[in-house]
């Protein structure tokens, strides 16, 4: 995807609303909007703009590509014969605006899950192929953020087509892919001046400094030997099993499938629920919160890296912020460093 670095251009703050409006006229446009609890990716409507003072949105980018509930196919019986109507993505080009680098990396971590041959998930792949991701670098990471520890960066480029770096008066605009150039060029923006480039570097340095000291999440080798460790017996005690962390995790992708109202649906599901692995026979391989929390953590920091080479965590900190029992993944990871069978 990545080719020659294109010249950075500059977008002033005042120009941003017009850019969004123009994008929405060409096709579906999603905007990272709102603040705190209410924030998420919202289809553009006049007046909607990203809030550059806000941190990462509470709801994640994955909802745009993997909705909470979606139809896999419709069914009806005609003259005694079932007729199936498969869902297909529209394929209409769309733009997602204000994507934080952690969320873009999360999509890159999910791509191999949904797109690995031979079973390519066309619903996911169709939306991914239709999307231009316009990123927004983080100039002020939140208190729960730990992306560098997870291999990311507040100005990371992985998975993005364009990166906007917020600086005084506007945004340094860096097209990163061919698709990103196709989005940027029609805007006719002036090249960024050297002092604007330098300001962007300073933003990056400040953000990285704020994030220094995050706990590393590279625990694969340790955890691979720690499945039976006694720490698991108490790590889960505080967890209520509400599954909020999995719903707001940008890399969690578990789903359920069921028939309702003439349609077969898939809906988000969670490994934190007891029924998730319950067999029809009544047998359940993960009977208590201990096994379920171990599964969630092992999947992200041991099993996924075994299969794909890196952890399935981007350090966005959402699970830390929303846990009603104050389970802090960073401290859990810190304890897991000591796990040795």
């Amino acid at each position, binding site marked *: 995807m990545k080719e020659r670095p294109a010249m950075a251009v500059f977008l002033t703050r005042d120009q941003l609303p017009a850019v969004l409006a123009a994008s929405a006229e060409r096709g579906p446009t999603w905007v990272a909007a709102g603040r705190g609890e209410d924030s998420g990716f919202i289809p553009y409507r006049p007046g909607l703009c990203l809030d550059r003072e806000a941190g990462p949105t509470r709801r994640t980018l994955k909802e745009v590509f993997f909705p909470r509930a979606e139809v896999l196919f419709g069914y009806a019986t005609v003259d005694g014969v079932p007729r199936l109507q498969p869902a297909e993505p529209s394929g209409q080009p769309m733009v997602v605006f204000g994507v934080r680098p952690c969320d873009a990396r999360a999509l890159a971590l999910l791509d191999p899950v949904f797109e690995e041959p031979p079973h390519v998930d066309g619903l996911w792949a169709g939306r991914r192929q239709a999307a231009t991701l316009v990123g927004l670098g983080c100039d002020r990471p939140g208190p729960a953020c730990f992306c560098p520890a997870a291999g990311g960066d507040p100005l990371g480029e992985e998975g993005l087509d364009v990166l906007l770096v917020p600086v005084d008066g506007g945004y340094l605009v860096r097209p990163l892919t061919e698709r990103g150039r196709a989005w940027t060029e029609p805007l006719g923006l002036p090249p960024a001046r050297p002092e604007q480039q330098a300001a962007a570097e300073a933003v990056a340095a400040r953000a990285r400094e704020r994030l220094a000291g995050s706990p590393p999440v590279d625990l694969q080798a340790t955890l691979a030997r720690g499945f039976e460790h006694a720490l698991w017996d108490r790590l889960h005690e505080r967890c209520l099993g509400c599954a909020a962390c999995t719903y707001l995790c940008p890399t969690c992708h*578990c789903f359920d*499938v069921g028939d309702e109202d003439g349609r077969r649906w898939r809906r988000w599901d969670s*490994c934190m629920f007891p029924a*998730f692995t*319950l067999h*029809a*026979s009544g047998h359940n391989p993960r009977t208590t919160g201990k096994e379920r929390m171990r599964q969630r953590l092992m999947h992200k920091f041991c099993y996924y890296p075994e299969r794909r080479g890196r952890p399935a965590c981007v350090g966005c900190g959402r699970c830390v912020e929303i846990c009603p029992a104050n389970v802090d993944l960073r401290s859990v990871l810190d304890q897991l460093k000591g796990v040795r069978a």
Partner: protein
Amino acid sequence: MNPYLPHLAVIQEVIPETASQDVKTFRVAFAEPEVRDGFRYEPGQFAEVSVIGVGEAPISITSSPTQEGYLEFAVKRAGVMTTAMHHARPGDYLGIRGPYGNHFPYREMEGKDVVFIAGGIGLAPLRSLITFVLDPANRDRYGAVSIIYGARSPGDLVFKWELERWRQRDDLALEVTVDRGDASWQGRVGFVPQVLRELAPRPENAVTVTCGPPVMIKFVLQDLEKLGFTPDQVITTLEMRMKCGIGKCGRCNIGSRYVCQDGPVFSYEQLRQMPAEY
């Protein structure tokens, strides 16, 4: 590409297996001729079977690829979907997608004696391989074939019609046992592991394939080890709750292995290296 869309198949025959009819075998054929001709599978693979409007479940294909034109699924009535399936009749439609998963290592097994050890409905996935091995086109590739099959009671034995056919062959040693007999039962009484110890198959140049309830598997594995079988000579097939069948819904993993893609067939050697979470 929508990998969740099943093909329609018509039920040709429903065979009640157990006395209580809690297990039935469904013989089905795809409605579209091109699907029927193009559906290729290996012994040990499974399919996602739908009762459209009710739901979907992963079911092992109990027929063998040597049997062309139809598929068979032996299904125990356990949950919502399998109960609805048990209400289906010949002529009704099912949805089928697959085949999924890996398969029994039948090529690596060539030239060896094969010992099948099954309990209850655990015979269903093994039957695909048994039929494949016994097929005239394949039989010469394998050494002595023996089957130890057990169920709780005579009424719980599945594939009785198939057991009769196997019994009449002279190139196959079949031992059927039940935990508890009844007034009319003339055969063996005893648990599968007991029969295994008594028959004591030789491990030299042999492979065993086993499937059954967890408690049976546990003792069978212990006894096979005592008989001198090494973990790589023991093959089994697992079941796990699944939704997608294609490695995406995140439900059937044991450690980093997905039963739907890396399994359902594993050697005991592989299982020993996985967390005991199944």
